[in-house]
């Protein structure tokens, strides 16, 4: 692994020199290079008092080196070679198949979801896909998963032919957990998962797009010695059809229908008596489900008005390996709009919709009402307002409990901005108020508890005409009230940025002090300070340094025990890196 990093570092230097040489000669060459390469180091420190108390957890890796290698090389008019390598030297997986992994093999390093090694050479309409690729065919087939492999993307005229095969995860042995111990921090384990996918379609930009998508993924049962304790080896096939049509005057219709066959556990016996096979791609087992999903939207887009209606149905048994976190058994209906009026001085973005769960009747029926509004008005050059409103209502039966679940969230935000100027500076003043109300019904007693949050903020930003100093100041008051808990926070923050060294350096510093209070306990105090320096060493080479610290001192809210009265922690975070832009 270190050899690879050394090689990349070498390549970084060679490319920097060769690119500078290219600049100096100013010769017209068919070879061009653009993009960015760089590396960074991040260090983290945490000092907790009293030592050994479990009052705060580390939230960054102690040391981490990250590499970025994303140049695009062009040879003549028709051939491009973009790289997209971004990776870290230490695995920090907390979710997904590699969660908890500490010492990866070379294969696991390359297929780690945190790392990306992509190479996409392209000649005219033919593109080769190599290494890590996030293949996005459609909303219901594949798009959310990084796969390490190889494939093609051919686009002759209006035809589309795409194929890709690879591995999204290698086998990872799980930690053997003792009874009752938590899975958090342990190696979850994973089976090796191989993917195959293709798309065949026809597309004309802003006119139409028709495509057939097919994806298949299968876990290799023998890829682990200690299998994951929870998830079983799986297999899934998804086929979908897309039809998008774009008409005159901005009207469009977009549709997709998909069918999935998904085996939750390939160790279960075959099920010849069930009609759940999709031969020759998947033979049904007792753990195989097949279901439909579909989405459609119709709408109009123009400079001053967007309006659309979207419906999305995901069947209870619809599962696709291309979207591992997709939640099934729901039907969403939303109307979205955006319009500008009053000579473009008023902009409104709004949506209203409903989600219904459990259309298959295998779970309890649940409904969500969703409404969002963002309304901006520029009354004069000096004065503008912004109003936001979000509402979510969730209702569901609650099994054997006497009362059903009912959670309602309402958020209202009002912001007023005013600016004025004199000969020396422009002054921008902003005041905002947010009310967030969350009602939750207790399913046993039927009592609804209300949780109110008020946020008041005042900020002031002067912009000097004859100085490059750019400060800003703000004060914020936050108050959250629940039946037995009251939390209030008062924050003062200020930042200052300025260029230096003939504008080769950009400096920025920020201070933030928060006084917090929980019920009648004594106040806790929090100071966050940070400095950011961007220094242009050459026209294309930038050196970045970030230093941050976070000091938190509790009041007496953690006591007893008495030893935790006034407990504190200090976090430090420092990052430095070089970035070369071609």
């Amino acid at each position: 692994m270190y050899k690879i990093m050394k090689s990349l570092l070498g390549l970084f230097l060679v490319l920097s020199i060769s690119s500078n040489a290219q600049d100096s000669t100013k010769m017209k060459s068919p070879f061009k290079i653009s993009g960015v390469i760089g590396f960074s180091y991040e260090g983290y420190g945490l000092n907790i008092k009293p030592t050994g108390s479990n009052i705060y957890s580390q939230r960054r890796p102690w040391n981490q080196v990250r590499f970025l290698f994303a140049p695009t090389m062009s040879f003549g008019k028709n051939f491009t070679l973009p790289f997209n390598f971004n990776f870290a030297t230490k695995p920090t997986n907390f979710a997904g198949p590699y969660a908890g992994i500490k010492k990866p093999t070379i294969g696991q390093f390359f297929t780690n979801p945190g790392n990306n090694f992509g190479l996409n050479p392209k000649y005219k309409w033919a593109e080769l896909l190599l290494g890590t690729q996030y293949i996005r065919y459609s909303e219901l087939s594949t798009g959310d998963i990084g796969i390490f492999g190889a494939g093609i993307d051919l686009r002759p005229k209006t035809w589309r032919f795409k194929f890709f095969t690879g591995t999204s995860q290698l086998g990872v042995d799980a930690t053997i957990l003792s009874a009752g111990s938590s899975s958090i921090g342990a190696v979850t384990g994973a089976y090796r998962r191989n993917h195959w996918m293709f798309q065949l379609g026809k597309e004309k930009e802003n006119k139409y797009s028709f495509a057939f998508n097919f994806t298949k993924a299968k876990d290799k049962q023998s890829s682990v010695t200690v299998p994951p304790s929870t998830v079983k080896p799986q297999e899934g096939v998804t086929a979908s059809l897309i039809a998008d049509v774009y008409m005159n005057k901005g009207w469009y219709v977009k549709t997709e229908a998909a069918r999935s066959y998904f085996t939750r556990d390939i160790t279960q016996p075959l099920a010849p008596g069930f009609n759940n096979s999709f031969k020759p791609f998947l033979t049904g087992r007792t753990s195989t489900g097949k279901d439909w999903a579909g989405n459609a939207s119709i709408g109009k887009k123009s400079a001053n008005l967007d309006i659309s209606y979207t419906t999305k149905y995901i069947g209870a048994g619809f599962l696709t390996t291309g979207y591992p976190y997709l939640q099934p058994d729901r039907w969403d209906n939303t109307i979205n709009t955006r319009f500008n009026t009053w000579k473009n001085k008023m902009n409104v973005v709004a949506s209203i919709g409903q989600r219904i769960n459990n259309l298959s009747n295998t779970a309890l029926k649940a409904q969500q009402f969703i409404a969002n509004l963002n309304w901006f008005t520029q009354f004069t050059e000096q004065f503008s307002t912004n109003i936001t409103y979000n509402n979510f209502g969730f209702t569901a039966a609650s099994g054997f409990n006497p009362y059903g679940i009912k959670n309602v969230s309402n958020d209202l935000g009002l912001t007023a901005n005013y600016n004025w100027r004199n000969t020396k500076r422009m002054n921008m003043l902003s005041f905002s108020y947010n009310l967030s109300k969350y009602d939750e019904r207790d399913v046993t007693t039927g009592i609804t508890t209300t949780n109110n949050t008020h946020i008041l903020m005042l900020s002031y930003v002067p912009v000097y005409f004859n100085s490059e100093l750019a400060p800003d100041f703000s004060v914020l008051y936050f108050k959250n009230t629940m039946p037995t808990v009251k939390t209030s926070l008062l924050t003062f923050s200020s930042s200052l940025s300025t260029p230096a060294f003939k504008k080769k350096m950009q400096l920025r510093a920020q201070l933030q002090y928060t006084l917090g209070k929980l019920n009648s306990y004594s106040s806790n105090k929090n100071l966050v300070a940070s400095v950011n320096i961007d220094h242009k060493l050459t026209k294309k080479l930038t050196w970045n340094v970030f230093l941050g610290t976070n000091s938190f001192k509790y009041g007496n809210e953690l006591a007893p025990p008495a030893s935790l009265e006034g407990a504190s922690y200090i976090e430090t975070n420092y990052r430095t890196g070089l970035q070369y832009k071609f």
Partner: protein
Amino acid sequence: MKKYIFTTILLSCVYSMSMSQVMTSLAVNNPPATLSDWANTNSAVIYTVENISAVTRQFIIKAEITTADGTVVATKDLSRAQVFSVQGTRIFFAKEVLPLDIMIFSASYKTTLERTGQLPSGTYLLNVQLVEPGMFGPMSTLQSRVFNLTAPQLPYLITPVNNDSLNARKSETAIIFRWTPLTPQPQAQPYYRLQVFEILPFQQPMQALRGNQPLLDQTVRGITQYIWRPQMDLSTDTLKKRFIWTVQTLNANRQPYIPTQGNGESRSEPFIFFIKD
């Protein structure tokens, strides 16, 4: 006539003796909503057979699922059922009592099962009895147990809404996360593990979620709201800071609540939010 009466009494005695020599008991404990998961959950169905005679006995386990009103949902195809031999005591689990590959489901239930792997939510009855191989005559008393099936639904994220832009100054003080509760609400309150990951420049959102260390990794029990004090500089000069967040639902043992569904992690569909100055 006397001969017939004598033969009938003799047969009845033999039958009752044979029944009394095979004792059975059945327990059904919160079976998973997905029927194929029963095979991996030994506690779901426990059928104990005790043969107190000195002779090894062979039998088939006859099983049937009905609704509370007696409508047959599924019956076992006895002609394909495994023959067991028992002397002493033996415990059978769902994979032997109800092997799905030889269960015959009635039409409407079969359609739901083929789609979802589950039966419609409701109350069911499991009837189990030992029968003779070949003739399928009863060898034990019928055991029946009531059980309920309701597929749990993982929380949906509420706020910050997907692709929302949050004010940097307000976010530096606190960000409120809300999600819907697990349904149906179980007796033992579930744990919700809230995770927030920063999406670094050049990273895909899913790459960040599955590869980065979360800036917030907080587990709460029963509650569906968390106020996060980020305690960090979120202001940006050029690039928008991006975050992806999700909630993992864990059971009382802090294991994924629905381990065999989808990704197996019981994580809700993640949302992305941005920080703007």
